[in-house]
């Protein structure tokens, strides 16, 4: 098929944005301002950002200082020349416009007035979308251009005029009534579908504020054939076409988007009402030549310079994505190990009599942070230990319980959702698989332990697939580095907690042996242990493998070494001179690990002593250092969290 290519349209679009920059810069910094991932058109914004190579930012990523507009990036503030605005007019500044908006940038119109930034389309241009102007278009065209309109208009009556209002009120059942503003895009009334009462209430609304309504002739729309379950059926469609004003003329995109009604009866078509989306192509007679020489190199300067210019909000989302995915995986694996042991218990609803199970359960509480849980300090009420199944089920499924697996998965989904623009389509698929698996599991009543194990297995496999895809779909300078830092940090922290919960106290030889085996199993290291040591499981060897090994990817030392390497690549890190705080913390953690000795770590003070003090102290120090690392990284790079507040709070009843 000879489908007309869109690239020349986007080239012009890109050039138009470059030319819009104040002072005619060669390489202006261009950003796309989006209301965020919950907006129905976010996909378009994200797609356009990645296609054209502009940073996708939210109001929070931008700030007005010294009369200029800046983007908060990992490295610091970057001056912005052009904003492609996808936030509604009234929401673009909480100072001069809607006070309750958190989507805009305080002071933006002032920067525009100073001609220090160009906003496309300018704030206020939304007024042109007023359908109340339609009846006046023929006259406007004749007055300004001395021409008649080329495209016919649907007959329209603006109720702000007496005669027109009366006509509309008398013919309401044959008309389509719309509001003239965009505050409520769903308010379209088809007179012929309204009951008597509904018509009367609409009349009352029109009479109360006639200027707010415009009515149009109800016309019969043509339909388009639509392939539905193997056969062609007629459907109403709405096409969205795009054009840009560039130079003295307009360019129209040779293609567009189509929304298709969900069934043959529906006249109103909208994505929110279950319609589907399609592309529309313009097909020509001529063979379309692939123009491979299109010069797309000349991309926005800030998009090219990579990590330094990553918007800090995106960076933070990636960091937390790494942390939550790490937390989900490590905890899911540990809980799986625990559930396997519980499957062998006589009665899952009674307090377990074996010490090893009790230790395992307490470790669950420590790792998930779902206190009091199985830890000693229970308040009044039945201790969780008396009914391990119930407590475990809550730790796994109660999404309102902070720290539970369900809660962590929820946080993981949120952080991924807000950086959707970085995803590949395979990632979507796996992500949706995880969501589906978990949703159906959430609804099951009283799942058996075997069923839980099965779900955990599936969850873990899909998570690993997902993690693999992240690494291959996102580039380091797109922010993958932040994801890795978050992931390593989280996995290290949980490994520390796990070792502390299982190993800091000395138990009977048999209990100890089992605990070591659980540790290795939950760490997916049992095979490696057998391969490396070919022996009976011993504490010293386990410590060597899980904590001090420099080569093994699952060891704490390895992870911290990797973390050290990764954070050195952050924009503010120093290589030669004095280290930044977060670098110092990680360096200190790494050296503590390198200086430790597993034979000493495995000892207690004396034969009768049960606490392995040296191990316990080391792990505690490491845990503290990593916590500080996270705080320091957050303080240095994500410090955009200053809340925006109004001096006065006022309602804004538009």
């Amino acid at each position, binding site marked *: 098929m000879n489908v007309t290519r869109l690239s020349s349209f986007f080239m012009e679009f890109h050039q138009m944005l470059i030319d819009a920059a104040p002072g005619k810069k060669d390489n202006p910094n261009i950003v796309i301002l989006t209301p965020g991932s919950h907006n129905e058109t976010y996909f378009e914004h994200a797609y356009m950002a990645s296609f054209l190579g502009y940073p996708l930012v939210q109001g929070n990523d931008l700030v*007005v*200082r*010294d*009369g200029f507009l800046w983007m908060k990036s990992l490295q610091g503030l970057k001056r912005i020349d052009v904003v492609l605005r996808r936030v509604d007019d009234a929401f673009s500044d*909480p*100072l*001069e416009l809607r*006070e309750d908006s958190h989507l805009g940038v*305080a*002071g933006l119109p*002032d920067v525009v*007035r*100073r001609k220090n930034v160009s906003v496309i389309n300018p704030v206020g241009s939304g007024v042109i979308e007023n359908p109340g102007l339609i009846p006046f278009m023929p006259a406007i065209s004749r007055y300004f251009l001395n021409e008649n309109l080329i495209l016919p208009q649907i007959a329209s009556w603006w109720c702000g005029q007496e005669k027109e209002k009366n006509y509309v009120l008398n013919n309401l059942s044959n008309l389509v009534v719309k509001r003239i503003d965009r505050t409520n895009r769903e308010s379209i009334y088809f007179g012929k579908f309204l009951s008597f009462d509904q018509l009367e209430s609409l009349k009352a609304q029109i009479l*109360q*504020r006639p*200027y707010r309504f415009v009515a149009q002739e109800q016309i019969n729309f043509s339909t388009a054939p639509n392939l539905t379950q193997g056969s062609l059926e007629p459907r109403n469609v709405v096409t969205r076409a795009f054009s840009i004003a560039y130079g003295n003329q307009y360019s129209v995109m040779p293609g567009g988007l189509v929304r298709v009604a969900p069934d043959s009866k529906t006249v109103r078509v909208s994505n929110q009402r279950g319609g589907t989306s399609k592309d529309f192509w313009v097909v020509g007679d001529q063979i379309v030549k692939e123009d491979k020489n299109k010069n797309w190199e000349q991309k926005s300067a800030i998009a090219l310079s990579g990590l330094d210019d990553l918007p800090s909000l995106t960076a933070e989302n990636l960091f937390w994505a790494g942390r939550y995915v790490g937390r989900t995986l490590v905890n899911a694996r540990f809980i799986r190990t625990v559930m396997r042991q519980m499957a062998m218990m006589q009665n899952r609803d009674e307090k377990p009599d074996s010490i090893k199970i009790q230790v395992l359960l307490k470790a669950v509480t420590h790792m998930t942070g779902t206190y009091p849980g199985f830890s000693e300090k229970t308040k009044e009420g039945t201790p969780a230990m008396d009914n391990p199944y119930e407590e475990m089920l809550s730790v796994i499924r109660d999404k309102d319980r902070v720290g539970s697996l369900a809660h962590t998965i929820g946080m993981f989904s949120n952080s991924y959702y807000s950086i959707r623009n970085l995803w590949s389509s395979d990632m979507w698929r796996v992500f949706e698989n995880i969501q589906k698996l978990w949703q159906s599991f959430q609804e099951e009543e009283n799942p058996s332990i075997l069923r839980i194990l099965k779900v955990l297995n599936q969850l873990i496999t899909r998570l690993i697939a997902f993690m693999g895809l992240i690494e291959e779909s996102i580039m380091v300078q797109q922010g993958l580095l932040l994801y890795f830092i978050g992931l390593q940090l989280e996995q290290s922290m949980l490994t520390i907690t796990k070792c502390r919960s299982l190993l800091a106290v000395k138990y009977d030889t048999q209990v100890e042996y089992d605990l070591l085996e659980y540790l290795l199993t939950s760490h997916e290291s049992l095979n490696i242990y057998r391969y490396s040591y070919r022996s009976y499981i011993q504490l010293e060897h386990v410590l060597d493998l899980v904590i001090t090994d420099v080569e093994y990817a699952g060891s704490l030392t390895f992870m911290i070494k990797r973390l050290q390497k990764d954070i050195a690549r952050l924009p503010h890190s120093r290589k030669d001179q004095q280290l930044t705080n977060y670098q110092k913390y990680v360096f200190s953690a790494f050296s503590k690990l390198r200086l430790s000795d597993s034979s000493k770590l495995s000892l207690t003070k004396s034969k009768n002593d049960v606490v392995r003090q040296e191990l316990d102290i080391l792990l505690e120090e490491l845990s503290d250092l990593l916590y500080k690392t996270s705080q320091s990284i957050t303080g240095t790079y994500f410090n955009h969290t*200053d*809340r*925006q*507040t*109004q*001096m*006065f*709070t*006022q*309602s*804004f*009843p*538009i």
Partner: protein
Amino acid sequence: MVFNVTHITTYKYNAPVNYCHNIATLRPRRSDGQELLDYKINISPGPAEITERVDFFGNFITRFSIQTEHDTLKVTTKSKIIRDFGFFYDSFLSDACRKITMNEALYALNGNDATIMDAKQFVLESIFIRQTNKDIKAYAEKSFQGNRSVFDAAYELMQRIYTDFDFVSGFTSISTPVEEVMREKKGVCQDFAQIAIACIRSVGLPARYVSGYIETLPPPGKEKLVGADASHAWFSIFIPGFGWVDFDPTNNQIPKDQHILVGWGRDYYDVPPLKGVVYGSGKSKLKVSVDIARVA
């Protein structure tokens, strides 16, 4: 009469603010019988940038931002103003002002000369004064009738608000809806001005909100306290063929020389003395003091 007006607004925050963007409508505009002789604004801590412009309604808008960490924001303005409103005050006695009936006014508003077009926007709904329930209209229609003089109706509306409503400070805030003020019959000058505007618009006539100051006189035999004067607000109604006439429902009088005008708009929203977006956490405490001293 010449006045020195000192207006001090202080915000104290309970947690440090890193930066803020603000808009102030504090510089008095020129208007009938009023000239600004001198004006100074002082902001502490010092703003990183400050600009002034004239807004859509012709008011002076000062925009500034502060980029140093602070826990107190203090904005002080000193204005020297000459008021000589006698001539305009007397013109309200003219037939052109007093004889226009509501029916005539509504008819004249169908015209489209520049003055009428400009006035008509003040019939429309505004941010704080939406078209409201029937109570407001019913209240208005007691005074506004087709064959009655618009001036007389507005004068009576002012008197009725003065008698029917209690001046209670602290009962309302800037976000209290007009309907609630109508129901409770309590509020401050802003509320009374906005009630009157809602009433006048409900019958189809233009009304605008005026922000300014009023000189208060000490009780007989007592010395005047510094800072006892106040930010003030009243309303103005448009009489086609004549022009705008101000009424102060809080004091039941037509403003003369003791009322100093700062700006006007559709309602409070268009002319807040000071507003801003603050970055930081925590709450703020506001203190306003106004002092008006006669120079001559």
